[in-house]
Structure formats: C-alpha cells, structure tokens
C-alpha cells in the first residue's frame, strides 16, 4: 500500500510514495537518491545507516520512513557546506580515518552528533559515542584520533 508523504532531508523537502513498511534507509537511498547512507547489517547492529532525526542519531535501517514525516532528517551529505568539508570530515582525511569507507558516513554522523553535545570529549567519551558503529577494517584508533582532532580544532 503506497502512502504519499513528504520527507525533509538536509533541509530539502522530497515528495515520496512509500509502502508502510519501507525503512528510512531504503527511502533515503532508493526514493530520494542520497547514497551516502549505507545499508550494512540491515539489523540495527553496525551503524553504517546512521542519520540524525531532529538532531539525534538514529539507525535508519530500523526506523520506518513514514515515521520521519514531520521531522528533520540529516544524512552524511548534510554535514558539508556545499563543496566545503566540515572540520570533522577534514580531520578524518588528515588522520587517515577512512579505509574502505563503508562505515565512514555512519561514523561521521555519530561523531558530529557527539561534538554538538560535547565539544571537548575525552578519548573514552569518543569511543563510547562511536560504540554503535562497526568498522570492518578495524580502523578505530585513527577514527577516534580524527574526532579528537576535530574537537580540539573547535575548542
């Protein structure tokens, strides 16, 4: 059963027609065409699908798309200012916090949400905040360093 709706993603309103059981990650990728958000485990374990709903991180694989109607969704594409990377994104490049890249959008969204709430986190706070994001390349040390670099740059 298709339901006509409007999803607001990165400040843009997208008219969509969705099934009642379409997950948010599928709507973002298939209906809206923003493919930065990844579908990894599709089981609420890996965090590759992390987006923000009204500023708070949520696993979009386990959230019904139609539940996001009326909310502001932010994906990894919404973190940069046009072609200019955020300081967090630049720090990932500086520190080598990207290997295969599949987990990177989710890591960036989780880290972005952390730094908005806590501009000067400890290394332990960074690791706890990224606890819901798996990196199969096990590049965690450089990812954590990147978040610490971005935090230091902003303080």
């Amino acid at each position, binding site marked *: 059963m298709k339901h006509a709706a409007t999803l607001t993603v990165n400040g843009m309103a997208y008219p969509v027609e969705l099934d009642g*059981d379409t997950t948010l990650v599928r709507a973002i990728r298939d209906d809206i065409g923003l493919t930065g958000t990844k579908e990894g485990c599709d089981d609420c374990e890996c965090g590759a699908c*992390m987006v923000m709903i009204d500023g708070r991180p949520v696993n979009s694989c386990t*959230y019904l798309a139609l*539940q996001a109607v009326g909310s502001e969704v932010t994906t990894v594409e919404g973190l940069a200012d046009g072609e200019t990377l955020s300081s967090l994104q630049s720090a990932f490049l500086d520190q080598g916090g990207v290997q295969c890249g599949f987990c990177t959008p989710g890591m960036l969204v989780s880290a972005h949400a952390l730094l908005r709430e806590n501009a000067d986190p400890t*290394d332990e706070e960074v690791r706890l905040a990224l606890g819901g994001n798996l990196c199969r390349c096990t590049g965690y040390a450089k990812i954590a360093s990147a978040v610490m670099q971005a935090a230091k740059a902003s303080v």
Partner: protein
Amino acid sequence: MGDVAFHTATTVDEALELLGDGSDARVVAGGSDLIVQARHGKSLPGTVIAIHRIDALRSLTAGDDLVVGALTSHATLCADPAVRSTWTAIADASALVGSHATRNVGTLGGNVMNASPAMETGGPLIVLGASVTLRSAAGDREVAIEELWTGPGKTSAKPGEICVAITVPAQPAHTGSAYVRLEYRRAMEIAIVGASACVTLDDDGNVTAAKVALTALAPTIIRSAAAEAAIIGTDGHDDALDAVAAGASADAKPISDLRANEDYRRAMAGVIAKRAVAVAAQRARGEEFPIPATPVFMKGSGR
C-alpha cells in the same frame, strides 16, 4: 515486505480506534524491536500504527512515585536526575541499552511490552515494585510488572490494549538499587546474564528488605527468593554476599545458546547478582557508585 497500511496517531484514543481488536494491527514507537523482528520472520501486521507523535505519553513525572510515560526514551531515563538518585537501577539499565542511537528511539513502554527475558530495564522495574497501565476502549487497568510477562515475547496484555505508563513507587529511606550486566562488549549487546537488586537498610546498616531479580536466566525475568533470603537481616557484607551468589545460581534456570552455555550462565548468575546486591547496599548507605554500575573496560579506562 509490501502490503502494510500505516497510520500516525497523535492521541491515545486515535491509536486505540485504529488498533480495534488488535487482531491485525500493532503499535510502533521507536521501531527498534518491531522492524528487527519483521526481518527475522515475524511478519508485520496488516496495519502499523505509529504512536511516536503522542506527546502525552512522553511525560516523565517524579513526585512521590515515578510515573514514566510509555514513550519516554532510554536516553531521557538515564539522564534524569530523579531517576538517577532515587530509582537508580533504572538509570543503570537504560544507560546500557544498545547504542546512543537505540537509546534515542527505544522507549520504556516498548521495552516492557516486547517482553524479552534479556531486556535491561525489566529487572530494575521488578525490584523497584513497578506496575504498568494498560489502556483499551474499556478503560485503564493496572498490572504489576511481574504479572505482565508470561514468556519470552509474551505478555498478559490483551491485543486491543496499549501500554500508556509505567509507575514506580516511592522508595523507603536508606534504599539503594542497582542493575549489573555481564557483557562481551558495551554497545549493541544483549545481556549474557544480568541481575538487579534493591536493598533497604535500618539506621544501624542492617538489611531490612531486599529484592533480587535475574535477567536472561529464565523464560521471563524472575525474582531469586534464595538470594533475597540470604541478604535480609545481615549487614550486607562478605559472607552474606557469598550466600547471595549461591542463592542466585541455585534459582537460575538458564539455557545454552550462542552467547553462553547453561553452566557458565549459572555460575555467572551468582557473580553478577552478588555485584548488584553489593552496589545496591553501597548506594543504600549513601555511598556514590558510578552509573551505569556495569564498568566499561577499554584502553585508558580508570575502572
């Protein structure tokens, strides 16, 4: 996936009307249980009713009693000063649920109605004496939390009922509570075993009342009468704690699965129950203990 009708309710009455007799409809709050289950073969009903916009169910009121609207998130619970100071075991538990993303969408009502014997918040609600309010077209009824769960994923709620609130009573002076979990990792973990305790002391520091609950050690979360009997009337120190451990292991009814075998779970039931009682007693004495009470082990961690 495909042929599912979707509605968003903004009041409980609207949700109840859409739910009807509940035979082919279910409510969804955060979705973190329902959608995962749908992917594991438990198909979605014909109609999904989203209740996450019912603002009236998001209230958290700490008066004498703590009244938790069913949609209160774990993130809200584990940060709330009153929950942390008076109903501390709930904060211990909510702080361990999933990851930050899970805690943002996961609700106490959803947790309770999903009825997993491994749920974090269930043991704390038992030892603190909580009840749930179930609403249907016929009105409200109050169910003691221990009478709500009837098996893994099963509750005594009727299909047309919606959980609207969880009430946790005021606690006596010199009372402390704690939830401790055995885990292989911190995030996105399911308890291998867990234990909750609530301990009340008299002015001399002797235990006058105690409740102990075991998580992931039986088809539902259960009380351990043997662990409780072992601590009541003592000063809550070493010999009594060893007897708590023996009692909890004896009362546990564990299974073997991919996370742990039966023998390991039974042995750890004692270890974890002893830790939970020790922390609850410390808090009852007015001593600070970090929340969550389960330490996180990582590089640079001081605990």
